[in-house]
């Protein structure tokens, strides 16, 4: 018989920020909190820099040609405890900029020639620990 739990908030009992979930193989477990993306967004740098759609990301900042900055709404644990994966429209790729902290990050966006460029659509996801 299927069971459905209606709940607004999930909190670990032993450790508030740690809930184990049985994995697809029915034996090992994984961690709910660690497995959740903590932020994601699409952004546009073709004109005025803007976040088109975002989760847990605040204001967008144009830091220069191809350089996009944004802040977290709920900060990450530290500058070294999160990572991003992203994709760009067309012939472009992105890397982390120099200014990464627990509260904000920069994405530097290059064309395949290596030059910093402003394209009209990028997407990225952030994994790591929240503060």
């Amino acid at each position, binding site marked *: 018989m*299927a*069971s*459905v*739990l*209606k*709940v*607004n*908030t*999930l*909190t*670990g*009992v*032993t450790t*508030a*920020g*740690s*809930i184990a979930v049985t994995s697809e193989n029915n034996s090992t477990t994984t961690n*709910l*909190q*660690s*497995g*959740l*993306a*903590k932020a*994601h967004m699409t952004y546009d740098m073709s004109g005025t820099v803007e976040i088109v759609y975002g*989760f*847990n990301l605040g204001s967008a900042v144009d830091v220069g040609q191809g350089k996009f900055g944004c802040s977290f709404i*709920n*900060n990450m*644990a530290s500058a070294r405890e999160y990572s991003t994966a992203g994709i760009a429209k067309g012939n472009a790729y992105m890397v982390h900029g120099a200014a990464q902290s627990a509260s904000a990050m920069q994405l530097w966006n290059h064309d395949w020639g290596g030059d910093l460029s402003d394209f009209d659509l990028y997407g990225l996801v952030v994994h790591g*620990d*929240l*503060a």
Partner: protein
Amino acid sequence: MSTLNVDALVGNTSANAITVRGEGSATTSLQQGLLKVHLVT
């Protein structure tokens, strides 16, 4: 240690909104954080 056996999770106030306590003191959203698609080609 406590274990809850359940087949589905639904928000109580809003069906599509469940808050999860993060690693620290902040909270995040279960629905927003879940990967929606993945594949191996």
